[in-house]
C-alpha cells in the first residue's frame, strides 16, 4: 500500500480497524492521512462511537421498540411445549 491514500481508502481502513488488526503499511498510510485530514478524523471517531454504543447494549435490549410476542403465537408455542412435555411425561418427569 502506498503511503499516500485518499479519504475513501482512509475511511474504509478506519472501519476495518474495528474488525481486524491493520497491517503495518496500512497503519502508516492511515496515520499519515489522518494527520492532514480533519474530516476523516471525525469520521473515525463517529464510527467508533457507533460501535461502542452497540457494544453497550445487551443482546436483549429493546431499544428498537419492537412489538411483544403476539397472543396467538404465544398460545401456539405453549401448545407445542405442552405436547413435547406430555410426550416426555410418560417417562416419569425428572430423568
Amino acid at each position: 500500500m502506498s503511503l499516500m491514500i485518499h479519504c475513501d481508502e482512509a475511511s474504509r481502513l478506519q472501519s476495518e480497524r474495528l474488525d481486524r488488526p491493520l497491517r503495518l503499511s496500512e497503519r502508516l498510510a492511515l496515520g499519515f492521512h489522518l494527520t492532514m485530514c480533519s474530516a476523516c478524523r471525525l469520521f473515525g471517531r463517529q464510527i467508533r462511537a457507533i460501535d461502542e454504543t452497540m457494544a453497550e447494549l445487551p443482546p436483549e435490549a429493546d431499544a428498537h421498540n419492537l412489538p411483544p410476542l403476539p397472543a396467538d403465537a404465544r398460545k401456539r408455542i405453549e401448545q407445542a411445549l405442552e405436547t413435547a412435555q406430555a410426550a416426555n411425561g410418560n417417562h416419569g418427569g425428572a430423568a
Partner: protein
Amino acid sequence: MQTDGSQIDPRHWLTAHGDVLYRYALKHVRDRVLAEDLVQDALLAAWKARDTFDGRSQERTWLIGILRHKILDYFRRQYRERPAADDVWFDRAADNDRFDDRGTWQRRPGSWDQDPEQAVHDAQFRQALADCVSLLPDAMATAFTLRHDDELDTDDICKALNISSTNLYVILYRARARLRDCLEEHGHGVTHA
C-alpha cells in the same frame, strides 16, 4: 445447583422471557412469522436439552444462547442454498457517491451535537442509533447486528452468511457510514460549517 428436570416449567419460560426472545429474533430476521417460528424451535430445543441447564447461568441467557444458534442455523441454510450477490449486501451506486473521482469526500462528515465519545453514554443517542439500524437494508442490518453479538466473531458471521471476510468488512464499512449519515440527518447532529 443442579436443576431437577421436574422443576423446569417451559410455560414459565414463555411467560417470563417470551417477549425478550421474540424481540431478539425479530431484531435479526425482521419477519414476524419467522421470528415466532424461531422462538418456538428454540424453546422446544431448550425443553429437549433441559438437563444441560446447570442453573448457574441465568435462564434467560441460556435461552437466548439456544435461540442464537437457531438464528444462525437459519442464516446458514438460507445463504448456503442461495449465496447472496454483492448487491444484496449493499447498494454500490448509493455508497459510491460518498467520494468524488479523486477519492475525496463529496460532502464532509458533519459534527454531531455532542462529542462522539460523549454520545456513547447518552440514552437519546442510543435510541437514535437503534432507529437508524432499523432503517438499514435487511442484509446489511443482519451483518451489522451479528457483528455486535459478543458471542460471535467475524469467522462465525462469514460462515453463517456464506461470505468472505473481505466482503464482510466492506458490508460493515458501508453499514457504519450509513449509520453515521443517518445520525447526522435525524437530529442527532447539527452540521457545523
